[in-house]
């Protein structure tokens, strides 16, 4: 086999009927990069036998772990929303467009109706298969005007796919520079009150970290028994034009409000039957808000980070995706 390039690779996914039972991929996701890997706690024996180095090795417990990055595409994002500690509701279609709404729940691991993923990776025409994959962390960010997502994923086991696989590709449905608007609410709660879009945000990164890890229990298998979720941490960071002291005062006063990023095709409102994504934190407070004098010719900006907080009788965050894809 000659050497290969990343561009020749492919990632395919399929929701599993039974978590951890590998299934051949049916949806091919155009990614930017991935680094799924086999992670093993290998055992090296430190027996004392008149030698001063380890004397044996045994295979240990293992799991799959890695990051996958792609430009947010409404054809594919819903598959990954199901594969985490989310309750997903699907409504529609309205003019052929379904709305998927994912909100957090308190499950300790993925169970029905959430759906784990089988993931196939084709690297230099060589197949890898991973089963029981779930998303431990989502990081949405706008890079060069395009909404991207990086997900940290964990899986139960590695499989050897029979193949051959023949990827089929959809036309890109990216959310570009004219798609985005950021709104800060005047209050917080289950349905914060949003007014006009803000024009001050220079960058936006939202991280939802379920702090997932692989759990191995004693059984006649080395693969992970399940993927556990721990505390959910919701955080954002951005840079803001520093034009008055309002937000600084909000930081000092721990003012709590809602915030959302709407990204829609064709610069229309998110409510329309158009592909798009809405990322909404229903209650946040600034964690840091730093403003200083930069260099001679640089704009005075404020670097801000914030943290999401639970909402009584509501959801701490909501991820909405409008898509023509109909996941059953």
């Amino acid at each position: 086999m000659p050497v290969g390039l990343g561009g020749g690779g492919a990632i395919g996914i399929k929701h599993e009927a039974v978590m951890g039972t590998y299934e051949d991929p049916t949806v091919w996701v155009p990614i930017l990069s991935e680094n799924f890997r086999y992670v093993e706690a290998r055992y090296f024996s430190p027996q004392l036998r008149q030698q001063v180095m380890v004397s044996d090795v045994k295979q240990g417990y293992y799991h799959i772990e890695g990051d996958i990055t792609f430009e947010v595409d409404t054809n594919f994002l819903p598959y990954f929303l199901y594969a985490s500690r989310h309750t997903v509701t699907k409504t529609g279609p309205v003019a052929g467009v379904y709305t998927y709404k994912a909100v957090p729940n308190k499950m300790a691991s993925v169970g029905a109706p959430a759906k784990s993923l089988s993931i196939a990776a084709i690297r230099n025409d060589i197949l890898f298969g991973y089963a029981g994959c779930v998303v431990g962390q989502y990081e949405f960010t706008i890079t060069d005007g395009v909404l991207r997502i990086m997900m940290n994923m964990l899986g139960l086991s590695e499989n050897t796919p029979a193949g051959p696989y023949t990827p089929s590709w959809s036309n890109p449905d990216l959310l570009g520079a004219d798609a985005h608007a950021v709104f800060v609410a005047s209050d917080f709660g289950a349905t914060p009150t949003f007014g006009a879009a803000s024009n001050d945000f220079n960058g936006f990164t939202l991280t939802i970290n379920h702090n997932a890890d692989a759990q191995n229990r004693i059984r006649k298998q080395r693969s992970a028994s399940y993927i556990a979720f721990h505390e959910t941490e919701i955080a954002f960071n951005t840079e803001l034009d520093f034009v008055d002291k309002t937000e600084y005062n909000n930081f000092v006063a721990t003012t709590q409000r809602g915030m959302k990023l709407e990204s829609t095709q064709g610069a229309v409102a998110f409510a329309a039957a158009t592909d798009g994504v809405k990322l909404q934190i229903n209650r946040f407070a600034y964690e840091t808000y730093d403003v200083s004098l930069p260099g001679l010719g640089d704009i005075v900006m404020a670097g801000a980070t914030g943290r999401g907080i639970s909402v009584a009788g509501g959801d701490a965050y909501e991820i909405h995706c409008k898509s023509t894809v109909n996941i059953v």
Partner: protein
Amino acid sequence: MKLKFDHPDFPKDHAFSIDGLGTFENGKSREVTEEQEAAFAGLRGLSTKEAFEGNEYVTLEGAAASKKGGES
């Protein structure tokens, strides 16, 4: 030979492209020319039939017996 792509998750007119074979509209079958079959075999080292045998969402009509890649 005709190839039909029918993925239940995607709308009926959704376009899928397959290297060497071109674009297919979801839910419809389309003739695959000998040239396209040869191009596909050259890229994949597999015949179209071999590549899609057992594929859940792709059906082939009028496919000849499997041929190894590169042959056309």
